[in-house]
């Protein structure tokens, strides 16, 4: 899955004087307000952060309201899908005209029938709609399937992704993995494209059922915050 990256950032937060008795909590609150929103500065959606204050103190700004400015160093997990990136998500609804997917538990993606390759045919079985691959009857996309798709565009305000299943390397992940295993055992050299290399460096993120990310990766990506489903206080 592409589009996830860990960014190191130097941040500055301004805290209200009333929060001075528990600055750590105040810092977390400020940063948590940024979660699951698109930010131009990070060029993506902030999903998680790991922060510490190098100086361990904050400066009181002069002025009518003496806010406390705290410098922070943070590692941020940013999600920035760009066109032609491969994303993975869970299918929640299959209709004749569209497939609705949820990516990372918070972003809704839709793939319209124009963007589904002709190999896939819509069928209704047991009252449920599903897409079956004509060439491989096992390849089925229905509600609950994890699929891989290509990003066409993303609406930054609403975090809505428009996807496409036209390229050949898209579809149900299980089937794709199986078929790639077959091809891997045949050829010794692995074809590593620049995209794949980038994602390897960033660490492969395992996406579990509920969209929470569990990290099992190279050492420098050592953040331990789990991504939660959007909760609004």
């Amino acid at each position: 899955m592409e589009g996830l990256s860990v960014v190191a950032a130097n941040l500055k937060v301004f805290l209200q004087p009333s929060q001075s008795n528990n600055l750590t909590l105040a810092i977390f609150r400020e940063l948590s307000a940024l979660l699951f929103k698109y930010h131009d500065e990070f060029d993506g959606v902030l999903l998680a952060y790991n922060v510490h204050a190098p100086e361990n103190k904050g400066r009181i700004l002069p002025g009518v309201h003496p806010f406390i400015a705290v410098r922070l160093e943070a590692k941020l997990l940013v999600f920035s899908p760009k066109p032609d990136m491969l994303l993975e998500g869970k299918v929640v609804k299959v209709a004749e005209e569209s497939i609705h997917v949820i990516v990372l538990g918070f972003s809704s993606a839709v793939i319209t029938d124009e963007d589904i390759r002709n190999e896939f045919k819509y069928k209704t079985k047991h009252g449920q709609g599903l897409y079956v691959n004509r060439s491989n009857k096992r390849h089925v996309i229905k509600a609950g399937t994890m699929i891989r798709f290509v990003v066409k565009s993303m609406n930054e305000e609403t975090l809505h992704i428009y996807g496409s299943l036209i390229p050949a390397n898209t579809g149900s992940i299980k089937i794709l993995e199986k078929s790639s295993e077959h091809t891997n055992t045949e050829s010794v050299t692995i074809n590593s494209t620049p995209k794949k290399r980038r994602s390897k460096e960033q660490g492969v993120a395992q996406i579990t059922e509920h969209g929470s990310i569990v990290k099992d990766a190279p050492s420098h990506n050592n953040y331990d915050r789990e991504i939660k489903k959007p909760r609004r206080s």
Partner: protein
Amino acid sequence: SIALSFLLTSHAAAAITREAERKRRGRRRRRRSISSALLLLNPRLKSFPSRRLIGVPLLLTLGGFITRQVPLPLPSLAASRISFDLPSIGFNFRCVISLMGVEVATNYAKMEEDISLTDSQLVYSFRLALKSVSSGDTESYRRLVDVMNPSGRLAPDEAALLLTSTKALSGAVADIDDLHHEKLLKAIFNLSLWNFGPDVIDALLELIVSLAASNGKHVDSCLDMLVSNFTPPNKVLDMLKQPRGLEKKERVLPRVHAALKNISELVPMAASRLSSIVLEQMPWKSKRNVDQWSMKRQLIYVENMFKLESGAIREFVGANMLKDVMNVLRDLDVAIGWDDILHDDSSKGVFMIELEDENYADGDEDADADGKLPSTLSEKSLSKNLTAELLDSLMVQTFEHLESSVSNKRLSEVFDTLLSSFKDTVLNTYKSKFTQFVMFYACALDPEHCGTEFASELIDMFVGGHNPLTSRMSAVAYLASFLARGKFLPPAFVASYLGRLVDWCWQYCVMHDGDMNPKLHQVFYSGCQAMMYILCFRMRLMVEIPLLKSQLFCMPIDKIFKHKLDPLKVCLPSIVEEFLKQAKAARLFTSSKTFVFEDLLVSNLSRDFGGLERLDMFFPFDPCLLKNADSFIRPNYVYWKYVRTTYHEDIDDDDEEDGSDGEVEGAAEFDDDMEEVIISRSYGDNDLEMDEFDYAMNKMSITPRNNSSAGLRMPSRIRPSMSPESL
């Protein structure tokens, strides 16, 4: 007419070339023939002589093509509305081919052949109609907008048309663009589901959900539309209580909530938008007048908010719903005028006023005559006040919701939210009148858990030096009123919190070795007043249980009152008076000075410590004057009228005030009182039972069991107790 037909054919041809993008190559010829065939059937082309002749076979071929799922170039027939019926063949059906798509309104029973287009063909034609708007061809689009703008009651075929169009639109949502299809979207979002039958409602909701899922820009409007359907139109609003209205409510609301759930499943971020949208669309907002309409609308709106709170998406919106409801209650509360004349005018004591309120609460019609109570805040005047009525109904709704939470086993999480909302808003609301009874009732439903949490929060807030002054004083006033009035609170519970309060007051005395100063030691004086208030209500109960009695007598109460800070002078005179009377009778504490209050309710000193907000006279859980809400509260409430004080005359004893003649501690007299006490179970405290057994045992012994600091003396009289329990 020939020219017209050529025109139409060319139009059809143009449409067909447009469709050349579709990848169904070989069937173009067939489509052309179909379109021209349909043209021939056009009844407007009256000059075609062979219309009838070719009618039937054409129809059959048409049917044949249709069943093989050929997409028909229907938009090409946009210019005309073709309808034909064929009575001569004996087919008793009417087939209406509308420009949007083909909708077969098969109204009649006898049908030999079913002509219908598949859903996919219908959807396809709709999509074409939508797409064609950007290129300037708005004819079909405009007709679609008309269909989605139904007015008045729908005839069955209109309803069927709406139904089919909606279903087809659901499939075509990907092509709905907020720029080009503004009118259509507006029409859809203005529909009120309350006017339609169940299948139309289902179809419309399906459309809304698909719309929200297809494009993030539509999510807000879809949620807006759903929330606006929380309240019915005025006609239905009138008859909500009747069976017809109820039936409509049952038809619409569960479906709306299901649609909200579906949207949040498909679009996770939608749930976060929902809370703010619900808040925005509230029918009644603060600083507005309440009238009959807004009252009814508000009631059903809050009903929906509670449904959301306990429904499928409660994880995301539940807490906010509760908080918003509490805010509405508080806003209504504040909007009801509170006249301080009530207290300042009459010279009656705190406890006397309540007796008069009691009369009103009992529905005593004649009480009006004797009351010196000003009429601003009495139950009678409140009943004419619409704001009060709305608050009353909303509180009843809240109580019922709390009861249903108990049955869902959700009371503790609901209570957590209520408590945090209470701390944020109601606690600091200047003299909130009735909203706090929500907390009271919740504690009544679950005294062990909720009651304990509530009391602990209050005492922690009071004791915590970092809290603002008014919050602390407010908190202790709430605590005192709660412990005094909660019938469901066992005496041991009251005693433990009283103990904490007394300990704090004594610590304060020790630390602040100063003179009396109402303004400086406001917190202290409010704490002392709280102590006295609780004891006025509960002293008798506590003294009757030996364990609690000993606890009570161990508390440094007399030390506090004899301290330099002199709380007895500063606190509210009526409370001080009552407390002294009771304490004397119970031999708990007798003041060395006599206080002559002249029946004053307030004194200057108490005003000083009360501060601007008169927190010296703040008794939050005084009887609730809202009739319907009060009926919930009553069984759990302690009325002053029914409180047995320690100097109360006992049923068996004519000679009441044994301790009223001047002199101080006589252990003898105290023992006498105890012997004569009849333990009645008017409060239904079941945990008295074990203590009572001990007590009954104790009564049979003659050794003095009073271990107060008063000198022990042998009882001068030993009488057999009259109480049946000891026998």
